[in-house]
């Protein structure tokens, strides 16, 4: 059995009376490209925030790469990279300055930081505006920079919250290739996205969260086995998702009600 990169035990987070994440037992093996899915408000971002140290769990345990997060948060953070929901960029720095800041904070020496920054900026096609502040970047450019900052120290686990949102097709292709290469080299990628086609194409394993609880977890093959598709056709991730979360489409709004639109 592969080593576990992420293990959570009874992970729970409450906001007053609302339980956003409820006793989650999650296991992600090293080297997996792991998709974390769920409808809006299901608890995806709360989970990713807890796993990256942006939110303290109400109860439960988290181990990343065998290290207990609560005991050694700095050691865990050294090993992970994050593209959070808000991207976390300092908008008054240029792209190169931000990467230098992050690289040095992760403990890289000056020369390595400089070299990696230049390579990443060129790879992300951000190198042609060395003097432009991040505040003046487009949303897609900011996303690419946030991803560059998340990988500059060569993390062993990469957390990505909607990484392709607002990124053009050309750049998205390059990013997917980069992520695939990272998993080939043993890194673990934990990704949330609402675009199920992207998750289906990239991820080998998937977990689905609904109303704060983990309702499915396994490889795509395992999940497909549980949801039989039409004869002679492979079940899509969208069908799996809808069958688990939407109970076969029962919760889908009835389009017929908006008849005046047609």
């Amino acid at each position, binding site marked *: 059995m592969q080593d576990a990169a992420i293990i959570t035990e009874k992970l729970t987070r409450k906001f007053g009376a609302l339980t956003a994440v409820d006793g989650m037992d999650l296991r992600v093996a090293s080297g997996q490209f792991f998709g974390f899915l769920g409808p809006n408000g299901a608890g995806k971002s709360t989970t990713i925030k807890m796993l*990256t*140290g*942006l*939110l*303290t769990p109400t109860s439960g345990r988290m181990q990343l790469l065998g290290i207990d997060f609560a005991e050694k948060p*700095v*050691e865990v*953070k*050294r090993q992970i990279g*994050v593209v*959070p929901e*808000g*991207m*976390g*960029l*300092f*908008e*008054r*720095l*240029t792209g*190169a*300055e931000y990467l*230098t*800041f*992050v690289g*040095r*904070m*992760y*403990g890289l020496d*000056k020369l390595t*930081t*400089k070299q990696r*920054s*230049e390579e990443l*900026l*060129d790879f992300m*096609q951000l*190198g*042609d*505006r*060395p003097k*432009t*502040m991040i*505040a*003046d970047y*487009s949303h897609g450019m900011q996303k690419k920079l946030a991803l560059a900052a998340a990988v500059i120290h060569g993390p062993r686990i990469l957390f990505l919250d909607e990484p392709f949102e607002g990124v053009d097709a050309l750049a998205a292709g390059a990013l997917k290739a980069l992520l695939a290469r990272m998993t080939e080299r043993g890194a673990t990628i934990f990704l949330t996205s609402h675009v199920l086609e992207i998750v289906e194409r990239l991820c080998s394993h998937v977990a689905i969260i609904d109303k704060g609880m983990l309702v499915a977890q396994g490889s795509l093959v395992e999940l497909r086995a549980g949801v039989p598709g039409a004869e002679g056709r492979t079940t899509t991730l969208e069908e799996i998702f809808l069958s688990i979360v939407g109970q076969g489409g029962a919760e889908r709004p009835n389009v017929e009600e908006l008849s*005046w639109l047609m």
Partner: protein
Amino acid sequence: MADVARLPTLPEQIRLVAGLRWRILRNGLKTKARVWDLIGLVISSIVGVVFVGSLSIVFFSVTMAFLRVHREARLGLLFWGIFLWWQVLPIFVAGFSPSFSFRSLLRFPMSFPAFYLIGIAYGLADSAAMASIVWLFTMTVAVAIVNISLLPAMILACALFVAANVTLERLVGSWVEKILSKRRAREVFLALFVMLMVSLQFLNPILQKYGRSARPEVEKVGRYSELFPASLPGKILAGSGANDFSAVGLGTAGLAGYALFFGGLLLARYRTQYRGEELSETVAPKRISAKRVTERRDGGGPEIRFLPVAVTVMLKKEIRYVLRNGFASMTLLFPPMLVFLFSLQFGGAHPTVSNRPLSPDLFFPAVMGYVVLALIAPSYNVFAFEGRGMQTYFMLPVKFRDVLLGKNLMLAAILSTEILLCAIVLAWRGGLPSAPTLFATFAALVFSVVGQLALANWSSLSFPKKMEFGKMQGQRQSGMAVLIAFSAQIVFGVTCGLVLFAGRVAGNPWLPLAIFVFLAAAAVAGYVASLDPLTKVAEKKKEAILEILMK
């Protein structure tokens, strides 16, 4: 095809927009959950009402006084005051935060006349305009009381004056909006405004020195002011009082001409907006170059060997942030400027305010206290400008003490530079104090600054409030942070004052230095000891901090 029976009429569109503005205002008040915010809003509203009400009494009384001595033309002075208020205030109030809400109405199927009229209605709903109209009304009441025969001329003059002002204000506003849609321009504008306000302090010394000799030249230029719209209502009223109908006709034609001219220019400006003018902060897209970029990129700057890497990196980031905050970097010029001004008023050979110059032994510590007071306030909400970047501090493998240390060192560097500059100004203007006072003041500065930084760090983590670069409107600190800063400054200021006084009472000039060295050592020890507990506070409060700062 959209299933729309008919477009709303012009009055319906105006009513809908008015309803929208009312709902925005009402919902805005609902979100003022914090008691301090609500108190601030109530206090500022009361102050506004008192201000407008007090000036209404002034306008009423002065109008009565002028009319009773048949000096109708002098009413032009009051119209000038209203004109300047109406035209200048909205530029600065609106200028610091771009508001595109009016332009956003363009996405709806709105006719151009409706767009134009709603634009003018927005102008009349502006606080500067409403105050001006209240003052004009009180002047009209005074006219009706003293000389009813002047009332038709007053009403005519006021109506044309309002028309000329509202169209001019909207015209200037739309150009200002266009210019200030760029962040850099907004910051420069704000900095110039503050510089202007500070420069006004120099008026008194300049007038005292050159006022008499410059008077004939000022009067010569003043004659041309009769051609401006603010002088014309006075001309109409003076003509009406003297039954000089040609003067009334000329004044009316002039004012109407101004209103039509500004209205025409505004029409052209709004038509450009109506056709879809782009105002955005986003940089125009450039073609991505295929070749590898070879320009020098950020190399990280020099290392500071005695500091941990994380602190050095933080310090460099802070330096960049200060240099890129046009307003913040310009405010660093103010302390030496103001110290120079104080030295003109209270120090040097010929002070303009006091009869005798203050002794350097009193003046030097007082000025240094002022420098600390002026520059340390932002450290009580030190994460205000981090925005979404605040997340990064909690994601990085660093202890929060390094973040705080980096930020505090930046402030210490700024304060040291400013203190040095101000000391040079003081030495030039009135000489340095005696050695015991000089060294005691420097020790007191260490005690006061370091002691306050420990408190300021706690305040920043406990009562953070988001602020934005280059904005003035709505840029308020948290009420508690202000209270803590205010209390701390009083306690440290009074303590320093008492220690200096103790030296005089004891007749030992070196006693304050000894006490301040002890207090400074205690403050440094307390500061160092506070860093680890503050790291825990940051961890404990990180959710609240991120929620507030990333809004």
